């Protein structure tokens, strides 16, 4: 840790005020430890509605629409039916009547034997910790709307992101880091809306981290001399407190004074959290990360663990961007490149969390905006398919080694136990100890929820 501010702060305050004896009352006030004066802090940790299984969430979002029948939803009939014509209906449009077989073999993984395709050989080994939901479904076949829906529960309108809701519901334990961080080096569909607090107070805004030298805007100290910035803060502290004294300790004013102290610490703490140089070679290898590199999905996964360790409540990892992603209309074979990018890092993340005992209270979620059609699109690709797709949950409170729900023989429709995006959200909140019907915010005349008026907690996926 760099020089702790409170120490230097006292020194500076004494230097500025002490000798002059101009503000004796103020000085003793200033020198008192300002930590712990967190009354009514909107980000202070809050009790959940009921005992929580998960204390934090790592939410992985793969952009573009990952094919379910090529990854986690084994469809033997579809292999046989390659090239066959089918009728429309059941989520299939007229244009997709010719079926396309998956390009990858499926093999059982872990002791549980959950079938996973060769796209995810590393992740397959973690299936004992993973609950695959095969019956996910949403409302919209457009990337933008489906991405918005997966993040906010609303497929058309801007609403607070799930991360903002969680921050609003639970606060955060580390006041020196934001409660909701989105590791999104590139911009996903629907842009920053998907990390946005919308009508929730700005404290709950997802802070987008792009990696590189300055992962968060204005995080790097611009004053070339550390001491100068501290002097500046010292002067502001003296003058602000003088101002505050004459104003009956207005809590808005004192909260703002405190925010500069937090920001000061963030300058040091946040880069440290994003800096993976301190990790061992073995750990880096686990994430498939070359030493010295600080980019790519492996970096995102490793930073996610570091942020989780530091008490960040909701960490989102965005895989791909709105222009380079899993959207394989023309050639499904390209799924292999995208899978390769995340397979090892995700397996590494789960293993690393487990080794450190953190998987017990960290919920890891993997999802995408929709699946892909069993029928061919373009030459050898698949189209958008929101009628059914796969996602998975792992860690805190999740029953590993199982799959939930199913699709029909070719993966065109949900066959049983459908899990709508709203149900998915309700389940995530439940694992965090939040009753999704009670997490509400009054805005523009009505109480809003992440799940609107819907949502069913999928209890079967939760360890009792």
């Amino acid at each position: 840790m760099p020089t702790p501010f409170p120490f230097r702060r006292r020194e500076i305050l004494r230097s500025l005020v002490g000798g002059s004896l101009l503000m004796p009352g103020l000085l003793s006030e200033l020198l008192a430890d300002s930590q712990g004066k967190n009354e009514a802090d909107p980000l202070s940790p809050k009790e959940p509605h009921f005992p929580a299984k998960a204390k934090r969430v790592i939410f992985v979002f793969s952009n573009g629409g990952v094919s379910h029948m090529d990854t986690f939803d084994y469809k033997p009939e579809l292999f046989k039916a390659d090239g066959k014509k089918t009728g429309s209906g059941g989520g299939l449009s007229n244009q997709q009547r010719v079926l396309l077989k998956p390009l990858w073999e499926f093999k059982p993984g872990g002791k549980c034997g959950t079938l996973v395709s060769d796209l995810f050989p590393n992740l397959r080994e973690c299936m004992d910790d993973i609950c695959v939901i095969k019956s996910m479904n949403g409302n919209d076949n457009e990337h933008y709307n489906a991405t918005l829906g997966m993040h906010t529960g609303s497929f058309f309108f801007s609403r607070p992101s799930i991360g903002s809701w969680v921050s609003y519901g639970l606060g955060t334990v580390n006041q020196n880091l934001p409660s909701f961080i989105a590791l999104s080096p590139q911009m996903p569909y629907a842009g920053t809306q998907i990390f946005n607090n919308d009508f929730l107070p700005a404290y709950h805004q997802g802070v987008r981290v792009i990696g590189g030298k300055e992962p968060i805007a204005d995080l790097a100290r611009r004053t070339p001399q550390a001491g100068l910035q501290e002097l500046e803060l010292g002067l502001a502290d003296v003058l602000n407190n003088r101002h505050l004294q004459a104003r009956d300790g207005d809590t808005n004013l004192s909260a703002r004074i405190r925010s500069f102290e937090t920001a000061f610490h963030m300058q040091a703490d946040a880069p440290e959290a994003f800096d993976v140089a301190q990790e061992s070679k073995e750990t880096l290898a686990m994430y498939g990360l070359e030493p010295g590199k600080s980019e790519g999905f492996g970096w995102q996964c490793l930073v996610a663990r570091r942020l989780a360790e530091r008490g960040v409540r909701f960490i989102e990892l965005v895989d791909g961007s709105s222009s380079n992603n899993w959207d394989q209309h023309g050639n499904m074979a390209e799924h292999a490149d995208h899978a390769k990018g995340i397979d090892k890092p995700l397996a590494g993340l789960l293993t690393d969390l487990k080794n450190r005992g953190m998987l017990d209270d960290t919920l890891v979620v993997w999802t995408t905006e929709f699946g892909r059609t069993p029928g061919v699109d373009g030459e050898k690709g698949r189209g958008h398919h929101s009628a059914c797709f796969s996602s998975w949950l792992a860690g805190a409170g999740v029953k590993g080694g199982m799959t939930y729900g199913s699709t029909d023989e070719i993966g065109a429709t949900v066959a049983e136990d459908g899990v709508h995006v709203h149900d998915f959200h309700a389940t995530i909140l439940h694992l965090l100890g939040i009753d999704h019907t009670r997490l509400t915010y009054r805005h523009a005349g009505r109480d809003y929820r992440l799940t609107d008026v819907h949502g069913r907690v999928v209890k079967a996926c939760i360890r009792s």
Partner: protein
Amino acid sequence: MASSCYSRRVGSGFERSNAGRSRTHDSSNRRGVRGIRILANPATDFSMERHSEILVRLLAAFVLVLTSHTAALGAEELPTFFRGLNLNGPSVHIDGNVWDGSNSKQYVCKDNSFENQAVTLIPPTDPERATMIRSSRYGGNRVELNEVLPGEYTVFLYVWEDNNAETYSVFINGQQVTANHNSGVTGHWDRLGPWYTKATKDQKIVVTSQGGTANFSGVEVWKGKYDGFNTSISDEELAFFEKRIRPLLANKCYECHSADSKELQGELLVDSRATLRRGGAKGPAVIPSDVEHSLLIKAVRYDDSDMQMPPDEKLSEAEISDLEEWIRMGAPDPRSHATKHFGKQIDIAAAREFWSLKPISNPQVPQVRDTAWPATDIDRFILAEQESKNLSPAPDADKRVLIRRLTYDLIGLPPAPEEVASFLADESSDAFAHVVDRLLDSPRYGERWGRHWLDVVRYADTAGDNSDYPIPQIHRYRDWVIAAFNRDLPYDEFVRDQIAGDLLGGATEVERQQRIVATGYIANSRRFGSRVDDYPQHLTIEDTIDNLGRCFLGMTLSCARCHDHKFDPITNRDYYGLYGIFASTRYPWPGIELDKQQRDFVPLVSADQQNELTQAATAHQKEQSRLDQEVTDLQATLKKAGDAEKENVKQKLKEAEKLADKHRRQPPLFETAYAVADADNHQDAAVQLKGDPAHTGDIVPRHFLTVFGGQELPADCNNSGRLQLADWILSDDNPLPARVMANRIWQHHFGQGLVPTPNDFGKQGKRPTNPALLDYLATQFRSGGWSIKSMHRLIILSRTWQQSSVRQPQAITEDPSNDTLTGFPRLRLDAESIRDSMLALGGNLDLSPAGPHPFPEQHTWDFTQHKPFKAVYDTNRRSVYLMTQRIQRHPFLAIFDGADPSTSTAARLNSTTPLQALYLLNDQFVHEQSRLVAERILAHSDENNVRLNFAYELLFARPAAGEEVTVGQKFLIDAAALLKNTGLSDEQSAQESWQACVRSLFRLNEFVYLD
């Protein structure tokens, strides 16, 4: 038998209609068509005796009408068979009526004929009808019945399925009557209807369908309203019904299950034959002759614990057995007009008892004990409230505090030191009023107060679709708003121009065009998605209605999109009454992923130039197409060209491309506005069931909210109805616009409105903290010619506004949220004021006219949801001129609680976050502005204590106090020493220590808070 029967019947009818009238007086007036349901069996059996019976009943009803005091009651005409048409076959007898065959001259149908008599019909029916059904027409799916005299008709359409199920919607006279009808399995048939309609002006009834292929077999038309049940009824049965059943249903069931029910339960209406048999959510309530399967009996017997009716008390055994007996008889029921529940019934008188809907009172100015304190009537309202709680006001603020507060309030910028000095020097009694006038006359005023309005109308420079297309022209609307505030355009005109400016014309060409620009308010509604064919226009219209409600009325209208408003008196039909107005409005198309070209923007040219220029534009477009085609052709040629000619073709292609590109880059022939116009078709809209445009219900006449009278458009209205809508909103009878806007003005002077929820004056909103004062302000607003600037003077010149922000300890304890205004509420500067101040203090604020944003040229636009438009344009102009995207927040505005560009922002949030602190610590802008301010300060004097005083004058409108100077000097010494240690010269160290000092001062609470 007959006569006694009549008298009883008349008697019971009288009781019923009386009861009905007293309950629904308002609604029947409103709809103007609710009549007494005359008892009739229209279908057959017109014997003389029955005929005379009906006449007697009619007469009785007529007497009723004459003796009643309800103006709109009128006896209904009995339905009579008008025409039947076998679309593909000979004349037939159906239900005892003679139908025309396909050779009839009274219709036009060009569809193909089709017949397959081998199919077994489901359900089975009589042979003649079956033959008629199995020979049908398909293809165009359009039948025009001619020679239909004016009047009301009921239409039934026979359709069937000969092979695979199809889904289609049916339209009568262009209005959808059935959405997504599924034709069912092979052999299935339906008699669709009843649909009530009127003959068109050219005496037609036109039946059409859209969607899948429909098989039209026959059309059956009745004059009048007919429910389609063809049952006869004997006198005994009629007597039994009138004596035992009707009163029973009326007394025990109608409260929750009739057209007049306040809220309909279980979607079941028991007040007509058709609805009772069709049943509600659980299925048919009555199956004639089948007592055991009739849900009505199940319910009254209390057999099923989930369905016990009436819920309060079980019927007597005698009553239950009457009902059983009646069903056993075949449930004879003369109530032939299928009833309809029109949703929530609003008790207007009761609804208007709610505080915000009551007429604006002109409240008496209250008496106060401390008569010395008040300077204006506002002060008396405020002080009376304080005195009632044993509180007292704060002392007056000092002049320096006051001028800083005032300057930010009215123009959003800090006062210059010389302005402060001149105010301090002016000891006249109207010194303060002079400053108010000076600031109200400043063009900077509109930039500040216009921004408040832009918050409410969720102004953005992009469309909000998935690719967020830029709208280069919308800045004209922004500029119009700013100018409107600057010229103090009366608020009623301000409202009217934004809703219907295009329909108002203007005294001058400039005025006409400005009014068109004003409708950018509607055009500014959000766009959605990427698709074109199934573009969700209903969401754009919802966005319009939602904003219109919040903005002008403080009402959450869009809550009534899917169902009646749960809290406020707004019905689902009210929503679609407004919807029709905007569905009849042409919105400009800003471009979208799959259709990137702007269209339907309104040309800003005079009427006489318009034709000429439009033609020129078309010609220009044509020429462009020709040039583009040339390029395409040459590209094709090049592909096929042999080696010898390749070079030559290449050269030609290059030239052609150059020409096409040059032509494309020519400036547009005329300027356009992102504004609306009336659509080519003006028509009422159908209710969208549960907000789903694919499932429509009744067509609702365009009208204003029922609670304000439900005004409809005049019969000869030949426009969208926006002009009328503006008038309805602004009518004297509507208290909301004045209350809502007066509250907004108060809100921006005190940080919080008297109603703390400025966009919601409904039941879910908060009540006014001082209702009498709000009405006083609303009255002043209206009687002062809706002048916003007058309202500013009224409020600012009050002693209430000029109080110190340091409140008495007792007031803080007893009124922690300061609702009684026992002191000025300390205000944080908004995002714009923070940025603008730094620019102004740095001396580099650009005040030249802003104009359009530097968007990429239109012909280069290729935005998709994969690569949406995204830009941040740096400028030194005021923040109101920052380019604001609908779906990407501007980075600075997002951090400092700027307005949400995707939905109406009623009040800015005041969050305090470490990201804000990081911005002030490290952002380049802050460092650069600090450098510029430091330069000014350094140039001001050579003495650090004088400089410190100047810095305080600049930032805080006051000199530095002695100890502040001491601390500041100590800081400058320490900082300079530190900088010198890093190798800087004395001069550089001094300069940079001053930059550090200014950075520090920019971060102070005193800089971002107004006392």
